[in-house]
Each structure stands twice: as C-alpha cells, then as structure tokens.
C-alpha cells in the first residue's frame, strides 16, 4: 500500500502568473530595488489585520473588508512585521538582490523544532517540492510573533519567486 496519495488538485496553490496580477504584488521593478513584501492573498475573505499592523501604512484593505490587501510599493520597506499577523500565512518578504548570487526570503514558520542559523535546509516551492538548498540566515522567534516564527533563508537568485517553504530533517 502506498503511504502517500497522489495530488490531483492545485486549488491551494496560486500560480506565479496569478500572483503577479493581484494587488498584494509589489511589482517586478520594486522587487529589484530591495526587500519588500509579497502578499499572496487572492480570496475575498473578510480579514484585515495586515492593514492594521503595518507601521508604514503600506497595506490597504479598506471597505469592504473583503478587498484584497493592496501593497504600496513606495511605502513598504520589507520590515517583516506583517508576516506573523496573517492568519493565512501568505505574506513573504523577498529581498531579490541580497547578494550577487543569492536572494533572501522571509517565510512564516510554525513547525517544531525551528531550524538553526547556518543550517542548509530544503528550499521548497508552493507545492512543497524541494527546488534548491536554502541557507538559514536568521530565525526570529518572539512572544510578539505569537508562535508564528520567521525564518529567513538565502537561496540562489533563480528561485526568489519559487521558494516559499522550507523542510529539514532533525
């Protein structure tokens, strides 16, 4: 008997083409310039804590509360405060040009144990497939984050739009 079912539905996965059309996407140009949030939120769920928490007032939901969050690419400085408040865990801060060869992705992480700085883990895409090695640069855990820790991983630049999860063996 197999241990795992084949996947037949990609309903849980937003395509990159789709993400680039939603108001939470800051734009390719802005992503070139420095760290910025990518809000991968595409359903009209009544929800707006990201709007409330952003210290730069860079995220707007407004009325009705089912509007998709809109990112103001000029105001967002990629401060990562919004990542942990999102009940959908769909906010990622992307620093494409972290170095000449690598991008840095901040990912919400709610598993135990947390990875440690310096570890090389699997960088996974939106379907959990391993796509590359990811080096853990930072692990942020605090009471304020309310059990949604943030893990920052460096990945080869080619994967800045792909890596949205990590996995590792203890």
């Amino acid at each position, binding site marked *: 008997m197999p241990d795992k079912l084949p996947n037949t539905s990609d309903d849980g996965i937003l395509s990159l083409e789709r993400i680039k059309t939603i108001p939470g996407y800051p734009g390719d140009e802005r992503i070139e310039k420095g760290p910025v949030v990518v809000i*991968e939120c595409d*359903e009209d769920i009544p929800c707006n*804590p990201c709007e409330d928490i952003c210290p730069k007032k860079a995220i707007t939901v407004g009325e009705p509360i089912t509007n998709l969050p809109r990112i103001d690419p000029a105001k967002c400085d990629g401060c990562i405060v919004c990542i942990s408040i999102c009940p959908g865990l769909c906010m990622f801060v992307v620093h494409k040009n972290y170095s000449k060869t690598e991008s840095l992705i901040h990912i919400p992480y709610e598993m135990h144990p947390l990875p440690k700085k310096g570890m090389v883990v699997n960088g996974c895409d939106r379907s959990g497939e391993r796509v590359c090695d990811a080096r853990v640069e930072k692990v942020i855990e605090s009471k304020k984050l309310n059990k949604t820790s943030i893990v920052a991983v460096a990945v080869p630049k080619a994967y800045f739009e792909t890596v949205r999860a990590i996995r590792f063996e203890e």
Partner: protein
Amino acid sequence: MNADLAVIGAGPAGLCAAIEAARRGVKVLVIDENDRPGGQLFLQTHKFFGSRHHMAGVRGFHIGNDLLEEAKHEGIEILLNTTVWGVFPDNRVAFTREDDKQGSVIAKNILIATGALEKGIFFKGWTKPGVMGAGAAQKMMHVHRVLPGGKVLVVGSGNVGLIVSYQLAQAGAVVSGVIEALPEVSGYQVHAGKIRRMSIPIMTSHTIVEALGNGQVEGAVLARAGADFRIVEGTEFEVSCDLIILAVGLRPFDELLRALGVEMAYISGLGGFVPLHDENLETSKRGVYVAGDITGIEEANTAMDEGRLAGVAVAEKLGRLDLSKAEELKSDIRRRLANLRIGSYGRQRAEGKQEVLAALRERKGA
C-alpha cells in the same frame, strides 16, 4: 435556584452572552456538559481571520483564555460537567450533574448556545478504532496532548479538514493526504496552501470506500467520486494509514430546541435545520434565545458577536440597559456581524440569516 438568564453551552457564543449580560447586572448562570468552559476555542490553534474587533490574528485558545478571565471578572457562575436534558414551559432548565445528582434552575430567559455536531459519513469499517471526527483528534492533541495517529488520511477539504491536517503535521503525524468528494477544495485557498507547502497532497473528486485493518485502522480503500458523489466502480485503490479523520461538515446541535418546540426551518446555506429568530436572536418562544453555531454553521468570531448581541438584548429586556444605549450597542454588533458575512464564503450565510428573519416574521404574521 433561579436566574435572570440561563446560558446553555459555555463556548464562544455562550460566554460572550453571559459576559455582556452580567456586565449590566443580569444574574447569569452558565451550564456546560464539558469539564472546562470555552467550547471549541481551545481546539483552535490557528489565528482568527477578521478585523481587530474580531480578534483577527489572535489564536483561538488565547481568545478562550481571555473570555474565561472576563467571565471570572464578572463573577459569572459556570456549572461544569452538567448536562441539560430538558427545558420546560415554565422556563425550568433541568440538568444532571456529574455525580448523577439532578438539579434545575428557573430562568427568566434562556440562551441555547449548544453549538454544532460533526456530521459523519458511513462506509465499511467506519466503526474501527482509528476512525474519528476532526474534533476528537483536535481535542486529543490540543487538550489531552495525545497524538491520535502516526499516518493520517483526512476526509474533507473544508476549513476544518485543512486545519486539522496542518495541526496533525505540526504535532508530528504524517498526513498521507486529504480527500474531497467535490471537484474542488472547499476551504480557504490559504489554508490549502499551508498544507500544500508541507507537501501534503489533496485529492479532489475522491471518496472513501472502506477502512481496512484487523481490529484497528491499517489502511483505507479510496475511489473516484462521480458528480453524484457515488463511487465510480473499478477506480478503487488503497492507501496505508492508521488514522482516518472525518471532516465532512457540521450541523446545529438542536435537540433542546426541538424539545422546546421552537420553530425551525431547513436552510442549506446555514448547514441544515436552524431555529427561526428575530434580530435580537429571540426564537419563536418568548424568552428563549439562540446564538452561535446552533443558529447556522459559521465561525467562532460570528458566534462571539451573536452571543454579545443576545446578551445585550436580554439586559435590555430586563431593564438593565436604556433603550438608546442598547440600540447603539446592538447596531454596532450587527454591523460587525454583517462585515463577517460578505465575500464568496460569507454571502450564503448572510442570505441564510435573512431567510431566518423573514420566515419568523411570516410565521408570526400568519
């Protein structure tokens, strides 16, 4: 024993109603059959959606702790391990306590906030140990700290199925997959996205045929589900698992309402038979109120606000709040509720609620 308000069910709706009423000097007694109050809030480890007023971004069990603190602060008496088995026409609420002692309370008003029951689906082997509802698995994990299985098949891709899959994986289980009879995922994309990023597969248009195993679950037979949800013969295959979680929907826990003869109607957008009620959540029986999932399957944030609305309405009726203050509080709450019932997931609930109000008006008029 007597009370101004007897609240049956100490979940999010019942606790919020009790708090709002007690805050205005209403003498409240809360009764719950569980050994601790809070209802399903303590099974909810995820952060709530909504706005600041709905505690968005706060985890369910933290909200539960806050409500218990508030209830304590208001001096609300909560009878635990106490099962209400009847409500009589003189507004006597009869109950059995843990030690089999009988008791009753005469209450000027009664709020029935008994929540929801999990639905089941039935298949060969469904009574084997290792087949359980999502709520049971959550209670084992989050309250009793027991991992109910090592390799799990989850049936149902609504938010409950998606969330319980995520929680099982967090607790260390391997989730073999989530199956869904419909051709698409029923819950939020973001919840599905969380488990997909953990590489948990989702199989739509599939259903369970049989739980395999000698004495306990050792696997399952699955098959394609046709448009009529029937098994497509010849498509059966097996998967290995030691736990099968059923997350196939909820229905209002309405036995007490039926015993009372409260007028009900079948409203599919609200999850089944629901009590008719007015804008203050008072049913067709004067002095009998309802709030939370018993009025239609929603979420804890709507349950809390419905509870608050009923609590304010009772305080107003008992003269503990003047009319204009009560109106102001109630319209605030109604606005918040309306805000949670919009969008593609909320619209049918909003329509269902309108049907409930209209049906009661119609029957009263008739």
